[in-house]
């Protein structure tokens, strides 16, 4: 009896939950309304069957519960009823499948006017490439991948020279212009998902997959990776901005072409040296750092990382509220007015002799190893050298006290959450592997053994 009532209430409760739920599909931003239509058809067909079957179940439990003098009816088969139920079910299935297959036929055949762009996934970041004026993407291969050619664009392919490369997880699209995304991966499986676009597809190393859509609503949307791709899967994020054709064109024009990235003049180390004078006061003549002035060692750090952080200070992506030492850097970084100046000074710093910073932190090295090996080594490498590929700076031999400050800042949300700090949130999330200050120091103590 109770069971019958409970089953009935569960049906009613499920319906109420459905209508009261604030959790539902995001507002669609492409013209894949046909997918939403198929979902709605399926929802109502299955919803009807759910209610009908379970109400019948509750009714049977109530009506045919054990009663004195009652006896079950012996009815082994009822061919007619079974046939009707088969027909009824088949019709329901066809009602759901038929629209689904029609929509799928549209999905597998991108329209001729769809413009192509490329999505490249790697652990754990997104990058994008647009065909240049020729409208053709140059061929690419993982064999060509290097720090200066992260897309692996074939340098011999003339079609690739004018390709616009966006080495940044934020991409743009023009509204109402159908696009076909060509998907590639440099390492493992990833999945290019924008919930508001409704469509998704895996990126598979060794082949090019695709999907297409027509963005219909301007706005900025999250790109999520939805195929497990290793420990950083949950922080592999990007964004896509859908905007007017004019805004898109001007954004695209501001991005470098592949040829520009390959033929850029080398940094002017002498110019960098001249600018470094302002830095030397705190960071030391050879970038050895000075703890008393809260200046970390910078000698030996990866140049791309120095460059990126200087830009962050300039843009205000670092050194904001709560980061008093960082705020000091904002003023100095702002003295580097051009991108060239930032590149030059980073190149100059790279010429410093790399002697390990003095150790100032002690802790439980075994625990530090455990945490580092499990969570940090995937990006910063086993030897703590860091690598451009995973956007990971060098840790081994760098200032240990600075490591502790920065991890504490990530933990406190002082660093890494600014919208322009593309990979900062990865560290905010990964730093949770260190539960408290003791654990941060344990990891610092372990990193000290890597010098």
């Amino acid at each position, binding site marked *: 009896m109770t069971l019958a009532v409970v089953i009935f209430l569960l049906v009613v409760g499920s319906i109420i939950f459905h209508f009261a739920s604030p959790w539902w599909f995001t507002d669609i931003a492409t013209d894949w309304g046909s997918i939403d239509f198929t979902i709605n058809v399926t929802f109502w067909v299955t919803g009807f069957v759910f209610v009908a079957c379970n109400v019948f179940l509750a009714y049977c*439990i109530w009506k045919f519960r054990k009663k004195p003098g009652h006896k079950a009816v012996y009815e082994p*088969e009822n061919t007619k009823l079974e046939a009707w139920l088969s027909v009824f079910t088949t019709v329901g299935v066809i009602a759901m499948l038929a629209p689904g297959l029609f929509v799928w036929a549209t999905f597998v055949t991108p329209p001729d006017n769809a413009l192509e762009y490329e999505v490249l996934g790697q652990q754990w970041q997104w990058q994008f490439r647009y065909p240049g004026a020729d409208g053709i993407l140059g061929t690419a291969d993982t064999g060509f991948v290097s720090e200066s050619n992260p897309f692996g664009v074939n340098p011999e392919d003339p079609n690739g020279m004018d390709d616009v490369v966006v080495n940044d997880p934020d991409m743009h699209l023009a509204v109402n212009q159908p696009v076909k995304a060509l998907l590639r991966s440099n390492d*493992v499986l990833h999945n290019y998902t924008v919930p508001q676009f409704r469509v998704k597809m895996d990126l598979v190393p060794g082949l090019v997959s695709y999907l297409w859509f027509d963005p219909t609503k301007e706005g900025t949307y999250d790109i999520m*990776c939805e195929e497990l791709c290793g420990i950083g899967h949950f922080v592999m994020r990007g964004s896509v901005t859908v905007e007017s054709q004019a805004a898109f064109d001007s954004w695209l024009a501001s991005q470098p072409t592949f040829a520009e990235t390959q033929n850029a003049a080398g940094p002017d180390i002498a110019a960098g040296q001249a600018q470094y004078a302002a830095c030397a006061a705190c960071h030391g003549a050879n970038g050895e750092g000075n703890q008393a002035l809260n200046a970390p060692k910078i000698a030996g750090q990866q140049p791309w990382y120095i460059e990126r952080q200087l830009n962050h200070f300039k843009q205000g992506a670092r050194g904001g509220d709560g980061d008093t030492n960082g705020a000091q850097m904002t003023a100095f970084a702002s003295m580097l007015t051009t991108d060239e100046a930032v590149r030059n000074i980073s190149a100059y710093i790279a010429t410093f002799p790399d002697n390990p910073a003095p150790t100032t932190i002690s802790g439980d090295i075994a625990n530090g190893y455990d945490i580092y090996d499990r969570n940090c080594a995937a990006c910063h490498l086993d030897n703590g050298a860091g690598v451009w590929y995973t956007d990971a700076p060098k840790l081994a031999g760098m200032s240990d006290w600075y490591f502790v400050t920065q991890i504490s800042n990530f933990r406190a949300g002082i660093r890494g959450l600014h919208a322009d700090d593309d990979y900062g949130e990865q560290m905010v999330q990964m730093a949770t592997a260190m539960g408290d200050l003791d654990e941060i120091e344990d990891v610092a103590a372990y990193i000290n053994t890597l010098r």
Partner: protein
Amino acid sequence: MAYVPLADQDQEMEMHHPHSWVEKYVWSQDHKVIAIQYGGLAVLTGIVGLVLSLLFRLQLGFPESVDFVDPNFYYQAVTMHGMIMVVYFLTALFLGGFGNYMVPLMLGARDMVFPFLNMMSVWTFLISVIILMASFFVGGGPTGAGWTLYPPQTTMAGTPGHDAGIILMLVSLAVFVVAFTMGGLNYVVTILQYRCRGMTLMRMPLTIWGIFVATVLGLFAFPALLVACIMMMFDTLLGTSFFMPAVIESGSPLDYEGGSPILFQHLFWFFGHPEVYIVALPAFGLVSDVLSVHARKNIFGYRMMVWAIIAIGGLSFIVWAHHMYVSGMNPYFGFFFATTTLIIAVPTALKVYNWLLTLWEGDIRLNAPMYFAIGFIFTFIHGGLTGLFLGNVVIDLPLSDTYFVVAHFHLVMGVSPILVLFAAIYHWYPKLSGRMYNETMAKAHFWITFLGAYAIYLPMHYLGFLGVPRRYYALGSTDFIPASAQELNSSITIAALIVGTAQILFFINIIGSLKWGKKADPNPWGAASLEWQTPDTPPKHGNWGDELPTVYRWAYDYSVPGAPEDFIPQNTPERVTPAASDEHIDTDKDSTLADV
């Protein structure tokens, strides 16, 4: 050639009666002892899987609440939970546990055809579990590649447990396949060759049909997993490139070229999809028998139920790529696999209708096993219907890899089969132990488990509609996930903790009742199938005393008009003079499967 029961071919089957405690309970060749060893080990492994799930649920509901649940551990826990539950818990418990216990008893046989092989199977299973558990203790820990073990990431530096952990996982799976094959061949041969006189195929209880077809599926599906494991081991240890294209690890190219990650997915799901039915079909069978007994009514549409089981089993081999709609395989495959997948809904729906119609005009006894069986119908309807979303290729685009998928497969192949397991354990407990379980405690266990499980999984579908991705250690900051989603996650975690803890009731009940339970009647439910007609309760080694039973009717003669009782055991002969009670269906009549 007409079927001659093996029991008739050999006058007396050779029995290896045990001579010592060790032979009786450790190196036992008795299918009932082996069943309990298999089941017990599966349950112990399942407890590890359950605890892992509670740990990562704590992280999802209350981020950073457990110190050692860091991103690395989260992925390891998710992976090991999945693999343990699907393979080492559900498969082993349904086939190794219930398969072993039920097959000889329900067929009127003294034991399995190959008792020694049967013993080897359970000990090989133990080895596979030990290897699996060893991965928790090696450097780098167990693999965190997701239970699907998709290459290339499985063996690459960015994945937890990419060195020793994954190798142990692959070896353990390979050993498991060996154990399964030894057991599986045994079940199949026993079902085909060892039925007692009169037990034609179309008189077998649906439990046996479920176990039989599931085992056949396993014998075809597990080899795909085995070769996938071996090929992946070759890639890792010998440097072959079956599944490995040219890839970059931490900025440097690895020495692989030309392999296909999607090939692995095909092999994995060629195993993985039938695996769903390897778990589901025995559950379908067991629940049919529980429903029929406690409703005091024959199972409705027995022949259609049998054909549905066979149809589902056959179709399950041509739907695997519906797990791969967004894998980057040729998208044109989507048309074929969406169609086959939705076709499978028809026989599955017919089974649900027939369970409902079994209750119709029944005389329903609401005992604890019946509670669980009815709970199963509810969760299975829900889980089955959400499968129609994911199977319809175009709806899979927004929902794939979201919490909708997690909610769907947990309801349909987690909660539903587990409710059947509880129904079956309570239902057959009196025969297995000779004691009754505690009814009040069993019902409390039901309410918490059933309502709690629904509280976990109903809301989870809605996270999926919203687009929240699965396998995320933390949601981080996004524009489309509102803060309320985190609150929902917290409530799901609370429900999970309650349900997880409530399982203690089950263990107290079944262990405590061994000692304090009321002595059970040999056939307390008034069941017609053969296992309730044994001369001893619990059945002794050899099951049937001096003489094997003879079967005269199907297993579902309940409430036959004119019969003195509301059930007629399968081994009750037809009377010499026809009487009203004999005017019942003979499912064997006019059946193509008769006399095979």
